[in-house]
């Protein structure tokens, strides 16, 4: 171990006057490294900046930076994107609701119409039967009287059921 230390000490002495040059060179190396590291960061930042500008443009706004003056407020672009998302969300839920409502209404209408149609058909069938019966009783002299006309009125629905 001792001999390693000895070699280093000897080397240091050997360097002598060019010691400062060596320090300068290593400092320059470190600075170059830092600069290169910074360049990568800057490139990354530029890429993100371009992406943000594109995103804002697509959303219909303009990228004005990530830090608004009022810190509590979100920047315009974020607000824009958020409002787009909210609009989509809300319109989708409203659409689902109105479609469901329409389906329900149509179903109720169909059921009511079926009930009404059945009632009407039953009543008409009964009236037709009564009319046929009244018509069959007409004598060969073809004289028709009040009963026949009553059945005819029933058949045509000319008389309200109250009468």
């Amino acid at each position, binding site marked *: 171990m001792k001999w390693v230390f000895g070699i280093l000490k000897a080397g240091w002495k050997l360097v002598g006057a060019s010691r400062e040059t060596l320090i300068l060179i290593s400092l320059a190396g470190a600075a170059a490294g830092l600069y290169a590291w910074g360049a990568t960061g800057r490139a990354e930042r530029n890429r993100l900046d371009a992406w943000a500008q594109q995103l804002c443009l697509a959303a219909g706004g303009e990228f004005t930076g990530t830090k608004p003056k009022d810190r509590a407020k979100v920047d315009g672009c974020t607000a824009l994107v958020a409002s787009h998302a909210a609009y989509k969300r809300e319109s989708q839920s409203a*659409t689902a609701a109105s479609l469901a409502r329409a389906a329900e209404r149509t179903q109720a209408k169909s059921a009511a119409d079926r009930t*009404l*149609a059945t009632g009407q058909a039953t009543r008409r069938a009964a009236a037709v039967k009564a009319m046929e019966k009244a018509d069959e009783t007409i004598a060969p002299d073809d004289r028709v009287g009040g009963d026949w006309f009553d059945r005819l009125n029933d058949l045509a629905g000319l008389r309200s059921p109250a009468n």
Partner: protein
Amino acid sequence: MTLQACARPQIETAPAVIAVEVKDTPPAQLLACPVAPEPFPSDASATIPPAVRSAIIGLASAYAQTRDQLLRVIRWHEPGACEDLR
């Protein structure tokens, strides 16, 4: 080497469908309740041959059918309308 762009996760986006309620109510004139004409007098009597009788019966039957159908159409658009009619 892998293609970076292809490795990105794809966000599934469903196409937005927007339904808007549209009021499609026919004009009020089309939904007016049918007014039944005066009935034949009950105390009348007449001599009507069978062919004429069956034509009259056919007319009455067709009128009732058409009126019923009209009522159905009216109530389809306005549930509970013309409630005083059968």
